[in-house]
C-alpha cells in the first residue's frame, strides 16, 4: 500500500518542511514577515535554503530524548557520588562560576533569539532550522541550570545567577553582547550568533570549557558538553549555510554581510577575552594557552574559512591582525582587571604561584616576564604582609564592549589604548578601533548602553558604596567575592578533602606540573 511506503530522507525533509508552507492569499507577505527588508538584505528564492542535515522534527525529538536520558542519568550519578569532590582544586570551580553565570543566560537568550528570527523569515527552511535551534538552546540552558544547582549546594557565587546577569558589572559584557544581536534584525542576528559566534569562534568557547572540565575532573560539565556537541555541530553548519545563502541571493548583500562579520568578529573576540583568562589563569590544570588556542582555532582554521569565502567577495574580518598582536597579553590584562576589582565579583581571584608563573613564562616568552611577572610579584609581596591589594576606584568602561579600558595599544603593551568619538555634543570612549567603528556605524544604538559604572554613579544600583552595590547585586561580602586564599570556598574544600594549607599548595603544583 502506498501509505506504508517508507519515505527517503529527502522526501521526508520535503514533507516536513516545504510541504508545511503555503502562499498567503488575503494578507501581504510583507505584513506577515515585516522584518525581512529593513536591513537591506535581498532574498529572491527562499527555497535555495538547504539544511545539510535534513533534520525533520520527528527524528529531532527522538535523538534529543535519547540524549536527555543519558545526560540526566549521568548528572544523577555525579550528584549521588559527590562528583564535585573529584575536581582538581576548588579554584577550578571559579572558572565554572564565570561560565555558568555568564553563558547560561545567553543560552536562554539564544532560545528566544532563534524563536524570534524563525518567526521573521519568509521561507520554511530557515523557519524550521531556527525553531530546532531555539529548542536546542532551551535544552542547553536547562541542563546548565542543573549543573548550577549541583555546584550551588557546595560552593558560593552561584545562588542568584539570573538576578546577577542583569546587574553585575562584568556580566554586562555577555549580556550586552547578546542584547545587541537580539535588537538587530533577523539577518544580522544570524550573522552575529550563527556565523560569527557559533561558526567562527565557538571552538574557542567550547574547547577550553569542555577540555578544561575533562582535565580538571568535572564530569558533570563534560557530560553536558558531549550532549550539546551534536547540536553545536548542527548550529555551526547552519551558521555557514545562512552566510552562503545570503551571499548567493544577491550581490548587494555582500557589503552588508562583510560589515556584520567585521562587527561581530570583534564583539565576539572581546567577549572571549574572559575565556582567555579562564584558560591561562583559572584552570588549575591547563589545556593549552590562549595564544596557542587563538593560533589554532582562529589563525589557522579561520584563515582557511575566509580563504574559502573569498570567492563571494568576503575578506578576513577587519582588525583580525590586532587580535593576533594582542594574543601575547590578552589573558594577563584581563586577569589583572579581576584582581583589581574582585571585591565586586561573584567569583574569586588569586595570584599564580611560582610553578604557574613558569608555565606562563614558557607560553608567553616575549611578554610575561617583562610586563606581568613583576606586577604579580609586587602584589604577592603586599599580600604576604596581609594587605591584599584592590583597586578602590571604579574603572572607565568601553562604550561598546563594556569591558574596563584595560587593553593596550596594538603595538605597545605599556600604553592603554584610548579611542573616542563625539556624537550630538557628547563624547564616547572605546578600548579599540574595533569597538569605535561599531559605535560610529550605529551611534543611536550605543548611546543607550547601560554601563554599570555610570549607572552606579547615577544612583541606580542600590547606593554609592561597595557594600550597597554588593547588596543590590545579591552578593555576600567576604563570601562570594575577593581573594581565593581567604575564601570560605577554600576553607570548605580543605575540610572536605582533609587537607592542610601546605598540602593544598602541593596538590595545585602537582596539577600544573603533570
Amino acid at each position, binding site marked *: 500500500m502506498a501509505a506504508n511506503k517508507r519515505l527517503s530522507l529527502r522526501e521526508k525533509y520535503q514533507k516536513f518542511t516545504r510541504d508545511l508552507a503555503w502562499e498567503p492569499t488575503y494578507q501581504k507577505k510583507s505584513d506577515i514577515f515585516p522584518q525581512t527588508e529593513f536591513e537591506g538584505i535581498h532574498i529572491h528564492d527562499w527555497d535555495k535554503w538547504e539544511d545539510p542535515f535534513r533534520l525533520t522534527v520527528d527524528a529531532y525529538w527522538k535523538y534529543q530524548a535519547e540524549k536527555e536520558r543519558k545526560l540526566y542519568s549521568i548528572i544523577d550519578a555525579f550528584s549521588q557520588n559527590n562528583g564535585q569532590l573529584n575536581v582538581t582544586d576548588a579554584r577550578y570551580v571559579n572558572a565554572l562560576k564565570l561560565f555558568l553565570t555568564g553563558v547560561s543566560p545567553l543560552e536562554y537568550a539564544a532560545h528566544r533569539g532563534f524563536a524570534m528570527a524563525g518567526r521573521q523569515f519568509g521561507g520554511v527552511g530557515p523557519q524550521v532550522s531556527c525553531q530546532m535551534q531555539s529548542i536546542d538552546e532551551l535544552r542547553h540552558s536547562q541542563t546548565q541550570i542543573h549543573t548550577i544547582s549541583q555546584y550551588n549546594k557546595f560552593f558560593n557565587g552561584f545562588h542568584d545567577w539570573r538576578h546577577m546577569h542583569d546587574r553585575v558589572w562584568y556580566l554586562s559584557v555577555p549580556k550586552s553582547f547578546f542584547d545587541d544581536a537580539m535588537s538587530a534584525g533577523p539577518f544580522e542576528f544570524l550573522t552575529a550568533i550563527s556565523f560569527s559566534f557559533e561558526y567562527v569562534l565557538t571552538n574557542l568557547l567550547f574547547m577550553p570549557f569542555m577540555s578544561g572540565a575533562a582535565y580538571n575532573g568535572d564530569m558533570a560539565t563534560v557530560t553536558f558538553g558531549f550532549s550539546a556537541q551534536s547540536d553545536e555541530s548542527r548550529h555551526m553548519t547552519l551558521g555557514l549555510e545562512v552566510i552562503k545563502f545570503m551571499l548567493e541571493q544577491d550581490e548587494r548583500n555582500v557589503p552588508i554581510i562583510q560589515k556584520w562579520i567585521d562587527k561581530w568578529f570583534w564583539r565576539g573576540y572581546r567577549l572571549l577575552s574572559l575565556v582567555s583568562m579562564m584558560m591561562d589563569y583559572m584552570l588549575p590544570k591547563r589545556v593549552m594557552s590562549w595564544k596557542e588556542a587563538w593560533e589554532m582555532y582562529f589563525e589557522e582554521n579561520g584563515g582557511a574559512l575566509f580563504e574559502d569565502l573569498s570567492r563571494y567577495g568576503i575578506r578576513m574580518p577587519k582588525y583580525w591582525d590586532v587580535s593576533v598582536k594582542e594574543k601575547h597579553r590578552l589573558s594577563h590584562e584581563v586577569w589583572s582587571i579581576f584582581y583589581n576589582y574582585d571585591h565586586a565579583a561573584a567569583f574569586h581571584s588569586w595570584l599564580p604561584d611560582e610553578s604557574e608563573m613558569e608555565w606562563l613564562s614558557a607560553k608567553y616568552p616575549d611578554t610575561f616576564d617583562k610586563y606581568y611577572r613583576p606586577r604579580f610579584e609586587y602584589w604577592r609581596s603586599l599580600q604576604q604582609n596581609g594587605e591584599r591589594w584592590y583597586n578602590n576606584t571604579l*574603572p572607565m568602561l568601553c562604550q561598546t564592549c563594556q569591558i574596563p579600558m584595560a587593553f593596550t595599544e596594538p603595538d605597545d603593551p605599556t600604553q592603554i589604548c584610548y579611542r573616542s568619538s563625539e556624537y550630538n555634543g557628547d563624547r564616547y570612549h572605546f578600548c579599540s578601533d574595533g569597538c569605535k567603528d561599531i559605535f560610529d556605524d550605529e551611534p*543611536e544604538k550605543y548611546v543607550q*548602553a547601560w554601563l554599570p559604572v555610570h549607572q552606579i554613579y547615577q544612583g541606580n544600583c542600590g547606593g554609592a558604596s561597595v557594600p550597597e552595590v554588593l547588596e543590590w547585586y545579591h552578593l555576600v561580602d567576604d563570601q562570594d567575592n575577593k581573594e581565593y586564599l581567604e575564601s570560605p570556598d577554600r576553607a570548605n574544600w580543605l575540610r572536605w578533602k582533609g587537607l592542610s594549607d601546605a598540602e593544598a599548595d602541593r596538590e595545585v603544583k602537582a596539577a600544573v606540573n603533570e
Partner: protein
Amino acid sequence: MPVQAMYEYKYKPLDIQENFHGNQLVYIGWEQHLMFCAPVCLPLPPDMPFGALIKDVLPGVYGSHPDWEKVDWDQVEWKLDDNAFAPDMEAGLEDQGIRHKSVIRFRTPGLNGIEGTAT
C-alpha cells in the same frame, strides 16, 4: 545611518550630564602605571578646582602605589582629551575646558611603575 531600525529611533543618551546629580564624569589615567588596570571614572563637581583634584581626590585613587609619593607635580605632563594641557590649579574643572566625560591623562617622567615595567 545612526541606527538600522524599522522606525525613527531617537532617545536621550543614557549618560548625559544631567543624570549625575550636579556632577560631571571625569576619566583619569596615570600613564605607565597599569597596576591600576584601567583609567578610573570619577563623578566630580564641575567647579572643583584642579588643585583640589590633585590634593584631595587622587591620593585616594593612586596613593597605594609606591611611586605616588615620589611624584614631582612640577614635572608632570598632562593631556586633556588627547591634547597637551597645562592645568590651572586654582580654576574649576569646567572653566578650563574639562567637559563631562573628558579624559585627563598624566605622565610622571622618571616614574614608570614597579621595576620600570609600566605596572
